[in-house]
């Protein structure tokens, strides 16, 4: 475990922890969706940083990059986590939009974005019905 590992894993896991704190402590639906987006960013960073190799170049070869296209082994980072994360980011936007539309539907039904009836001890029947 070196200093770089401490910075990257520690920073990313703290970012994910901030997202979890947001989900657990906020009752506004759109704020919860924002917290989920923060967690998604953290997980993407974690996956890419697991595939990183110190001192290697980006996985692009040939031409001006100076890496021989026929022997890429030993000179570039692992491309598989990057390919995984690339599609995950695009899917993340579509699912965020779907969740937001669901939140807008909740607002139209109840007149509020707050999840009152789901948090114990704070239920207020009159306000839930409104």
């Amino acid at each position, binding site marked *: 475990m070196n200093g770089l590992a401490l910075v990257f894993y520690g920073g990313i896991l703290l970012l994910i922890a901030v997202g979890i704190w947001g989900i657990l402590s906020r009752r506004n639906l759109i704020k919860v969706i*924002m917290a989920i987006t923060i967690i998604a960013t953290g997980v*993407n960073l974690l996956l890419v940083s697991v595939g990183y190799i110190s001192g290697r170049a980006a996985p692009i070869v040939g031409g001006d990059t100076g890496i021989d296209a026929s022997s890429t082994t030993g000179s570039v980072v692992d491309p598989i986590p990057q390919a995984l994360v690339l599609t995950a980011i695009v899917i993340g936007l579509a699912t965020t939009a779907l969740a937001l539309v669901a939140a807008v539907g909740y*607002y139209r039904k109840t007149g509020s974005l707050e999840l009152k009836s789901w948090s114990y001890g704070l239920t207020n029947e009159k306000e839930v019905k409104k």
Partner: protein
Amino acid sequence: MNELVFIALATLMFILMIALAVMVIRSKDLIKAAILLSGVSLIASFVFVLLRAPDVAMAEASIGSALTAIILVFAIKKTNRFEEGGEEK
């Protein structure tokens, strides 16, 4: 790149990112939170460049900081701008 420069840049970016994320969660104004969230994504795309992932950085920069923010703003415009207890401030 020099190892020391790399570690200093990474530390700075993570401190900024976590600070912005905490501000997103604490802010009562949802539009402000959406814009801060796009800042988190922008810094994350810089970290992807540090991790030698230019493809992912391009996707994160355009999706995270442009499209996610605007979709959030459109959804907020259809609902309430402020979280409960935030209007009077």
